[in-house]
C-alpha cells in the first residue's frame, strides 16, 4: 500500500498544480487583461455606423436643380465573415469577379468593418440579395444618398462629378472615411466643403456574421447634417439652347457671361460625358477609354483648352495702338492688295480690301492693315496692353485647372527663338495667330472691357452680389472707338450673320489656324450694345470661318437669352 500512497500524493499534487495554473491563467485573462478583452468584446459587438449626409444641391440661377441627390441601394461586405458560397452567389448577382469583391473589401484594414463594394444596384439585384439574406453571411444592403445629375452631360464640365474617396484623399483629409463621396472635378470639387455636409454616427449591435441586431441607445447617435446648397449663376434654359444650337458640331466650347457682373451663364464644352456613370463607379476599362479618347471628353474646353484667338485679337491690337497714341482712328496704311511682302517672306490677307482706316480694318478684318499696325505699335506695347486686359493670366474663376494661355512678349520670343526672332512673329501676333494662345473664358473676359467700358469683372459661377472688378487702365476713348467698330462688324462687316433683329450686337469674328486640320471658327459678341446683358464667346472646332459658323450661332444664343430676359421682365410686371 505504500506504493499506492506515493502515487496518490504524486497525482493529487499534479492535479492541484494544474488547477492552480488554470486559475492563474484565467486570472491573467479576466483580471489583468480584462479591460483589453472587454474592449475587444465591445468592438466585436458594437459597430460605429456612419450614415452618409445628403450632399448639397447645385442650383441654376433660377433655383432649378442641376445636381441633386436620390436614394440608392448599396451592398457592403464584412471580409472576416463572408464565406465562399456567399461570395460566389454575390459575384453572380452583381456580375463582379470574386477577386474584385475581395480586392475592394481589402481597402478597409479591419476585416470586421463592412466595406461598400457596389453602389446603386438595381431592384432586381436587391431582391435577389434580400432573398438570400438568411443564407448569406457578411453581406449587408443599405440605402445611401447618391448624387444625381438630371441634365446628364449638359453640365458635366462645370459641375464635375463625385466619386468614392480614395485612400490617398483620406490621407490628406482625415475628416473623411472610406465609402464617402468626394467632389473630383468642377464645382463639386471647388465647393466640396460647402456641399459635403457631415456624416451622422450611430452605434449598432452586430452579430458574428456582421448582421445588425439592434440599435444601441446608451451611446448617443448623431444625425447626419445635410450639405449646403450651392446657388450658381448658370442658366439652365440657355445652356440647353446652346447644346441644341451646337448639335451638328462635334467639338466646341462656349462661354456666356453677364459682362456687368461677371456671372457665368453658360460654360459649355463638347464632347461631354454623363457624370451619373461615375456614381456607379467606373470600371478601369471604361476609365481608360474615357482618358484615351482623342476627343478628350473629360477636358473642359472652355477653361482648359487654349487656341490662337485669330482675328478676335485684332480689337486688342487696335486698343493698344490707340491707347499708346501710336495712331489715330483715321490712320491708313498701304492698300491691301491681298498680300504684303516683308523681306523675302510674303504675308497674305484673305481678301483684297484696298485702303482702310482703323474702323474699316476691324469691320472687314483686314490682316494686312493689322500687320502694319502691329509692326508700328511694337511688340512691347501690344504685350503690355494685352497683359493689362488679362491675356496670359488666369481669370480667377471658381474652377480648378483653369489654363492661363500664352501671351508672348519680347522676353518670351527671345527665350523661344533666341535673338533670331523676327518681325514675322510680331505679324502673326498682330492677327492673333502663331504663339498667342487664349482660353475661351479668357477671351470672353477680355471682351468684357468693351461691354463694360474699361472694367473687367472676375468671372464666377457661384451666385454672389459682390463682384470683383479690375480696371485695365486703357483710355475710355480708345475703348469706345473700338467698340463702335465692333458694332460695325455685325452691322455690315464679317459678322453680319450674328445680327439679332431689333438689338445692336457688337462682336468680332475669328478663324483660328489649326495645323492639325480644318481651322476653328470663333466669334465673340455681346448685346445690347448700349447696356450689354450677355457676352458670348464661342469656338467651334474644325468648322472653318468664324463669320460663317460661330457668328450665326452666337446670334441665336444672344437672341434666345434676351428673349428670356424680356419674358422675365414682363412676368414681373404682370405680377405687380
Amino acid at each position: 500500500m505504500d506504493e499506492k500512497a506515493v502515487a496518490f500524493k504524486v497525482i493529487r499534487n499534479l492535479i492541484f498544480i494544474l488547477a492552480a495554473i488554470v486559475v492563474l491563467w484565467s486570472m491573467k485573462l479576466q483580471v489583468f487583461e480584462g479591460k483589453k478583452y472587454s474592449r475587444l468584446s465591445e468592438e466585436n459587438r458594437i459597430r460605429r455606423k456612419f450614415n452618409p449626409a445628403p450632399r448639397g444641391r447645385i442650383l441654376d440661377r433660377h433655383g432649378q436643380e442641376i445636381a441633386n441627390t436620390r436614394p440608392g441601394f448599396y451592398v457592403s461586405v464584412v471580409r472576416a465573415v463572408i464565406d465562399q458560397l456567399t461570395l460566389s452567389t454575390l459575384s453572380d448577382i452583381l456580375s463582379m469577379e470574386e477577386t474584385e469583391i475581395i480586392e475592394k473589401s481589402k481597402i478597409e484594414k479591419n476585416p470586421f468593418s463592412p466595406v461598400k463594394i457596389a453602389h446603386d444596384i438595381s431592384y432586381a439585384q436587391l431582391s435577389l440579395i434580400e432573398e438570400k439574406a438568411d443564407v448569406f453571411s457578411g453581406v449587408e444592403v443599405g440605402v445611401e444618398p447618391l448624387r444625381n445629375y438630371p441634365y446628364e452631360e449638359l453640365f458635366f464640365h462645370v459641375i464635375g462629378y463625385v466619386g468614392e474617396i480614395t485612400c490617398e484623399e483620406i490621407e490628406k483629409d482625415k475628416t473623411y472615411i472610406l465609402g464617402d463621396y468626394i467632389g473630383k472635378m468642377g464645382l463639386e470639387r471647388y465647393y466640396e466643403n460647402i456641399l459635403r455636409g457631415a456624416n451622422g454616427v450611430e452605434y449598432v449591435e452586430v452579430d458574428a456574421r456582421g448582421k445588425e441586431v439592434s440599435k444601441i441607445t446608451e451611446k448617443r447617435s448623431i444625425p447626419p447634417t445635410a450639405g449646403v446648397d450651392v446657388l450658381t449663376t448658370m442658366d439652365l434654359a440657355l445652356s440647353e439652347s446652346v447644346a441644341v444650337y451646337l448639335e451638328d458640331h462635334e467639338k466646341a466650347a462656349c462661354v456666356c457671361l453677364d459682362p456687368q457682373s461677371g456671372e457665368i451663364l453658360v460654360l459649355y464644352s463638347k464632347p461631354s460625358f454623363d457624370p451619373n456613370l461615375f456614381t456607379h463607379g467606373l470600371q478601369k476599362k471604361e476609365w481608360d477609354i474615357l482618358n484615351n479618347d482623342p476627343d478628350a471628353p473629360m477636358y473642359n474646353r472652355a477653361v482648359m483648352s487654349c487656341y490662337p484667338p485669330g482675328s478676335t485679337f485684332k480689337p486688342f491690337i487696335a486698343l493698344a495702338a490707340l491707347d499708346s497714341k501710336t495712331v489715330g482712328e483715321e490712320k491708313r496704311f498701304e492698300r491691301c492688295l491681298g498680300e504684303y511682302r516683308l523681306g523675302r517672306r510674303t504675308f497674305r490677307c484673305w481678301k483684297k480690301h484696298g485702303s482702310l482706316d482703323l474702323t474699316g480694318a476691324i469691320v472687314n478684318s483686314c490682316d494686312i492693315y493689322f500687320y502694319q499696325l502691329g509692326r508700328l505699335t511694337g511688340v512691347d506695347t501690344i504685350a503690355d496692353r494685352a497683359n493689362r486686359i488679362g491675356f496670359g493670366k488666369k481669370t480667377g474663376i471658381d474652377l480648378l485647372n483653369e489654363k492661363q494661355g500664352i501671351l508672348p512678349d519680347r522676353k518670351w520670343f527671345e527665350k523661344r527663338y533666341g535673338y533670331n526672332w523676327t518681325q514675322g512673329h510680331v505679324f502673326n501676333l498682330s492677327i492673333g495667330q502663331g504663339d498667342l494662345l487664349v482660353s475661351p473664358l479668357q477671351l470672353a473676359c477680355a471682351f468684357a472691357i468693351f461691354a463694360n467700358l474699361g472694367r473687367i469683372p472676375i468671372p464666377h459661377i457661384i451666385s454672389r452680389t459682390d463682384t470683383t472688378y479690375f480696371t485695365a487702365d486703357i483710355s475710355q476713348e480708345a475703348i469706345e472707338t473700338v467698340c463702335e467698330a465692333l458694332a460695325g462688324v455685325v452691322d455690315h462687316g464679317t459678322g453680319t450673320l450674328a445680327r439679332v433683329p431689333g438689338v445692336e450686337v457688337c462682336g468680332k469674328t475669328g478663324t483660328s489656324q489649326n495645323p492639325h486640320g480644318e481651322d476653328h471658327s470663333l466669334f465673340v459678341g455681346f448685346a445690347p450694345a448700349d447696356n450689354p446683358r450677355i457676352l458670348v464667346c464661342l469656338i467651334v472646332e474644325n468648322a472653318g470661318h468664324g463669320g460663317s459658323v460661330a457668328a450665326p450661332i452666337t446670334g441665336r444664343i444672344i437672341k434666345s437669352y434676351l428673349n428670356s430676359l424680356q419674358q422675365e421682365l414682363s412676368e414681373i410686371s404682370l405680377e405687380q
Partner: protein
Amino acid sequence: MIKKIDPGIVWLTGALSLLGVMMIYSTAGSAIMTRQITWLIFSILVAIIFSRISPRIWLNLSPVIYSLSIVMIVIILFKSDIYPKRWIKFGDFSIQPSEFAKFATVLMLASYLSTRKKLQSFSDMAVPIAITGLPAVLIFLEPDLGAAQIFLPILIVMSYWAGMSGVKILILFSPFVSAAASFSIYTWVVYMAILMVFLYFRKQLTDLVYGFASNSLVGLIMPLLWSSLKTYQQKRIIAFFSPWLDPQGMSWQIIQSKIAIGSGGLFGKGFLSGTQKKLEFLPERHTDFIFSCLGEEFGLVGITVVLGLYVYLIYRLLRLAKETRNRFSSIFVSGIMIWIAYQTFINIGVTIGLLPVTGVPLPFISYGGSALLACFMAIGVSLSISKTKLAY
C-alpha cells in the same frame, strides 16, 4: 463492511450536470436543452443500475465489452459515409462509439493490470500498450485526434497506479516529449542531451539503449509525420502558436474564446447576458467551447467555483482509488479519475488559450449524449465500487 455509496461523487456529478443543462440553455436555447435533459435522465438511470452491479461482474464482462466497442468503431470506419466517421445513427439520435471506447478501454486495462502482480520491465507494458493503442489508432483514423489522445494519459496513469515505476514510465513515454521537442532542432538537441545525461547516471543499460534509440528515431521521423497530418490539424497547431496572424481562420475560435473569457472579468456579464455567446462570435458554444461562455457570464468567480467542483470530484475519485482494497476496482477508478481529469484540463486549457485547439468535450457540462452517458456509466461503476471499497 460499509454498504454506502460515496455521497460526494453523487452531488458533485449532479451539480456539474445541472450546471451543464443551465449553460446549454444559455448557449443553445430550450430545444437543445430538452435533448440534453432527456439524455441526462437516461444517463442517471444507467448510472443507478450500474451502481448496483458488483465490480466482479464488470471484471468478468470486460473482454466482451472491450471487443464490442472495438467492433463498433471498426464498423463506422468501414460503413459510415459521413466524414469524419464519428457517429452511428439510430433513427433520430446518433451515438459516438469513441466515448464508449473510453469506458471499455479503462475497464479492459484495469482487468488486465489487476491480474499482473508485478510490473517491472518494459516488456510488461506491451499488453497495456496494445489494449489502449488499438482504440486510439482506430479513433485517430476516424479521424478524431481529440478523442484519440485520451488513451495515452489513461495508459500512463493506470500503469503507474498498478505499480509500474514512475521513472520507467517517463523513459518509456519520453519519445512523446522528443516528438514535441522536434519542432525546433535546438530544443530537441537540448532535450536529448539532458535525457542522455539522466540515463547515463541511472546506469541501466536497457533504459539507456531504449531511451536513446526511441527518442532519436521519433525525433527524426516527426518532421515527416508532420507533413502527413491533415491540413486542419496542422492549422490548429499553427494557429495555437500565433493566433493573431490569421484572425479569420482557425485562430478565430481561440481569439473569440479568449475575448469571451477575458471580457467576463471578475464577476462576469451575468447569466444569459454573454454578448460573445449571444451574438454568435463564440464558436461551438454549447459543445467544446461551453466553458468560454461560462467564463463570460460568471467571470473569474464562476470559473474558480466550477474548477473547484471538478478538482473536488477528481480528488474524491482519486481518494476512492486509494482506499479501495480490491486491485481491479482501485485501478479502474484511477482510470475513471484520469479520464475525467484529463478531459477537463484539456477542454479548459483550450478555451483559455493555454493549449492548442483539440475537440474535447467538457465532462458533464458540454452538450452531447454519448459523452454524458459514458461519463455517467463510469460514475455508476465508481459508485458501486465505493459501496464495497473495503472488500478485497
